[in-house]
């Protein structure tokens, strides 16, 4: 039972990430490879303020989302000048920068959480307390699963509301023809900023849940491989609608579990998993550009 709850929690976490990327990629056409960095911002913020300052879950998550939103400017400003291919590379640059921050803001002799050593570098931060909302402690795996599910559903509801609102219609119009949209008086650069801020904030939320559940965070959550995993998830699952990201998230969980049954040596299991994702990407590009269940074909 616990095993399924464990998978369920991950499914919720990745669903939130998938929905956030759906906004950025499926509605704005911005294929960003920097998302793991924002995931990590949420995780590290929650870790630091809950361990060092004793904050509860909601304020800590709120702070993490706020920081991620502001930091999303790095990606949205890249989107002003560049679309498509070069934007992907710029997001890669942001990714390197963010990873660099988490890995290098470290001094061996200082205690973590101080300005000299904010992230404890490669050693990570351990002992992160489980979520605590106004005194209600979510200690058991069941309660955390419930919390994760509630948050995932809340994110889904917010995404759905946004997409069916006039703002969502504006996103579709921008996706169809940005020049024309600008000619109608729409400040598309500002809208892209909004989209990336929302997407990065959601990724930070997912990161905070992750940190609260696993109780340990280190820079490996912010690597390029993680970003690529996220991107594979939504490209293979599909974007531009609601089914797609969810299919992608489920696939991301299911694949390593399936591999477990195929007796692949542990040392290379991670590589095989990533390799399969690579293969999926190539297959998607050749045969089904909208992903398995999506609606928007990559431009």
């Amino acid at each position, binding site marked *: 039972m616990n095993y399924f709850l464990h998978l369920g929690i991950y499914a919720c976490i990745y669903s939130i990430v998938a929905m956030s990327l759906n906004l950025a990629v499926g509605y704005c056409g911005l294929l960003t490879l920097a998302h793991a960095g924002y995931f990590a911002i949420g995780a590290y913020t929650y870790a630091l303020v809950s361990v060092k300052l004793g904050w509860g879950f909601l304020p800590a998550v709120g702070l993490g989302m706020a920081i991620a939103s502001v930091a999303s400017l790095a990606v949205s400003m890249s989107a002003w000048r560049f679309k498509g*291919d070069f934007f992907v590379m710029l997001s890669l640059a942001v990714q390197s920068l963010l990873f660099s921050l988490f890995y290098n803001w470290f001094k061996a002799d200082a205690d973590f959480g101080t300005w000299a050593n904010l992230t404890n570098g490669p050693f990570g931060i351990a002992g992160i307390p489980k979520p605590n909302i106004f005194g209600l402690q979510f200690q058991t795996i069941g309660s955390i699963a419930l919390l994760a599910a509630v948050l995932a559903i809340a994110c889904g509801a917010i995404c759905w509301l946004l997409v069916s609102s006039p703002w969502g219609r504006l996103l579709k119009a921008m996706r169809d023809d940005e020049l024309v949209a600008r000619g109608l008086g729409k400040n598309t650069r500002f809208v892209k900023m909004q989209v990336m801020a929302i997407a990065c904030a959601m990724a930070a939320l997912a990161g905070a849940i992750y940190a609260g559940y696993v109780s340990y965070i280190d820079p490996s959550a912010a690597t390029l491989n993680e970003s690529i995993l996220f991107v594979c998830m939504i490209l293979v699952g599909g974007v531009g609608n609601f089914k797609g990201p969810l299919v992608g998230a489920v696939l991301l969980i299911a694949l390593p579990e399936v591999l477990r049954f195929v007796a692949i040596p542990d040392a290379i299991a991670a590589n095989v998993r990533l*390799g399969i994702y690579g293969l999926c990407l190539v297959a998607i590009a050749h045969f089904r*550009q909208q992903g398995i269940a999506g609606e928007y074909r990559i431009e």
Partner: protein
Amino acid sequence: MLQILANGIITGGIIAVMALAFTVVYLPTRIFYIALGGVYAIVPFLAWTGLQWGWAWYVAVAFALVIGVMLSLGCELLNHAWLEEKNASSGTHLVSSLGIYIIVVQAIAIIWGNETKVLRQGVDGVFNLAGVTLTQAQVGGAAIALLTIGSFYLWLQSTKLGLEFRALADNKNELALRGFSIQKLRLVAFGIAGLLSSIAALLVSWDVGFDPQGGLAALLLAVVASIIGGSQSFFGAVLGGILLGILRSQVVWFLSAQWSEAASFAILALFLVLRPQGLLGQKLRLESES
């Protein structure tokens, strides 16, 4: 001061070779060749294996270069050419290239493992020229980078194939209307890119070693170089590479090596804001940016 400059120019030269490799595919075909990072990553491993099998260094190097080029040609023949047939969008090419890169890197990790390796053993010899200390690897690297870039430029400007290649970058349709096979020229592009990136990879791995993940970082530098140099010309990439190398070595000196990533990004951001068309670029007839 001169030391930092010299270091910078030399690393810049190698970045320039990789930047040229990227541009050689991007300009004529508009394909964002991410899998080039995969070629970059695998070549040192192949050379290493050759050395492990007791081959002489020039045999191992030749072997690695040949396989690198073949891998690059394979990307075009088995992947991009097919997508082109279906009139795929550039995003589709990019995603497929990313997929191939991932497959290649994971294959490297599965075959050879994830740790960093080195191609040469022991301490390198040093030279002392006009007060500047250079390692043997640096001098060799600079010489080969110069030779490579020089030969490419010579080929581009003086040979018939080079002319066709420049024409391909200018106007694919008009070239096709003159009876030249676009298919063949694309293969030439991918082949040259494979060769150039293999050379860059070997030069860097001879100097500092290599691991499976190094390809994308090198490609990122190459793309940044081509943007700041001007992504509309072959030579812009070279100029951008050298400039980037110099700027990075300044940063490494004044801050630390760990911040060189951040520095690259900062330089790129600066250029995008001040001069988005790069050093050698010209404003295009774009309807949009104001």
